[in-house]
């Protein structure tokens, strides 16, 4: 069964130097819909992407910095709506591993878990079911009752990671660059990601490590400057990428 189908997908961004700053342009832009802008005011972060992913497949996304990998994850996660072409995701995709965006500094760990997880779209019951595991995985101990502002950045990231990997969706989006914490925790989080991948879910993995892409992924997508360079069997795509 098809899990993700992407057809001629295009996403464009306004360039900030053309962002409306004058009152008149602002008013005009508010009245009209978000419409076609002039060629020169925007750039295509992604264009003419075409691929299909089946249920349970693991897709690795590779490409240099700024090639549009994160933008692609955002489109699959439903945050950006295509400006061109279409995307269909069967079921719901998880959010990007957000590592604590949306935490409220003055609330304690548990309160933040509930707040964060409801924003991610989970119900109270779904959260109740995994809260113990989240707390245990985050290794925060009694700090879980402390306001998040007293956490170190590593602790915050651990909590964010724990929330993201315990609240699962049909399609999981993983940005491996966000490997967090000290050596021990990183090992544990790698294990957890492996577990997610072998769970039979559809996974999109963004990584710069060809080794992990080779290890985990059944398919691979190489994009460069928003354009699809190759899509197909992992080893073939990686060879092309390395040869370039």
């Amino acid at each position: 069964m098809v899990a993700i189908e992407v057809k001629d997908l295009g996403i464009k961004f306004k360039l900030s130097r053309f962002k409306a700053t004058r009152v008149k342009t602002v008013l005009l832009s508010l009245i009209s819909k978000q419409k076609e802008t002039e060629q020169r005011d925007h750039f295509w972060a992604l264009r003419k992407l075409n691929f299909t992913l089946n249920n349970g497949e693991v897709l690795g996304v590779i490409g240099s910095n700024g090639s549009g990998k994160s933008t692609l994850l955002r489109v699959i996660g439903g945050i950006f709506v295509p400006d061109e072409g279409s995307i269909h995701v069967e079921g719901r995709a998880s959010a990007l591993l957000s590592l604590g965006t949306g935490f409220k500094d003055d609330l304690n760990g548990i309160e933040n878990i509930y707040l964060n997880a409801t924003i991610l779209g989970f119900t109270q019951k779904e959260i109740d079911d995994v809260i113990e595991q989240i707390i245990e995985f985050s290794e925060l101990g009694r700090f879980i009752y402390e306001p998040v502002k007293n956490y170190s950045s590593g602790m915050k990231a651990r909590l964010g990671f724990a929330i993201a990997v315990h609240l699962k969706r049909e399609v999981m989006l993983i940005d491996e660059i966000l490997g967090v914490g000290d050596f021990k925790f990183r090992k544990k989080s790698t294990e957890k990601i492996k577990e997610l991948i072998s769970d039979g879910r559809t996974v999109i993995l963004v990584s710069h490590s060809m080794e992990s892409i080779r290890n985990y992924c059944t398919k691979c997508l190489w994009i460069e400057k928003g354009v699809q360079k190759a899509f197909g069997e992992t080893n073939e795509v990686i060879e092309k990428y390395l040869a370039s």
Partner: protein
Amino acid sequence: MNRSQYISSFRSILKYLVRGELKIKYKSRMLGVLWALIDPLMLMLIYLLLVKFIFQRGGPTYAVELLTGLIAYRWFSTSIVQASRALVSNGKLLQTVRFPFSVLPISKVLINGVDMLVGFGILFILTFFFDIQPTLYWLWLPVLLLIEFQFIIAMSLIVSVVGIYFRDLLNILTFGVRILLYLSPVLYNIDQLPGDYQTLYMILSPLAPIIDAFKQVMIFGHHPSKFMGIFVLLSAAAWLIAVHLYRSRPNLSKDL
């Protein structure tokens, strides 16, 4: 996400947001929830001093009239100013997760609504000291609160989106609500204006009908004026704009 999932997710996010922010607001301060009492009272005392003792104006129930107006006004002004930053200041979050963004401005209205209710608590106590008897007209209060509530929500939704494209909005609003205070019947009553101008005033001053209505039912024992109709029309227009702004911007988070 289907419709019922959407609504239930909307409600639970709102619940945790409001609960969390209320806790931050009140629990983290020494005087806690007392601030909700002190804030409007202090404001009232300042204006009372100014009008009653320096300008020697205002009738015997002036303090209660003032507080009624202030509470209704402040619910609007504080919510609007906070809502104008609600989306902008959460840019990162909006680019990470897809959720019903409108909960952010709406939560501000609810949080300030708690202050408003506490304010009404004080008001009821004050009416006792100023010898204002409860009347059947008070039954209008929940209706008026609902009418004001939906208006503030519509306006908050509008400013939250406009705030993304027009960053000066916060500065403008800070002054704007200040001016609005003097343009609204808070420190004075409508009947103190020259007769010819009263109708024009009620039409041009956006909050005038609702603030006047609160005073009429609470203190003067009258029904709300016919100008409430204008206020309801204004709300309808605000809702049209608000819904259009959100509907026409599925890619809102890209503009942050």
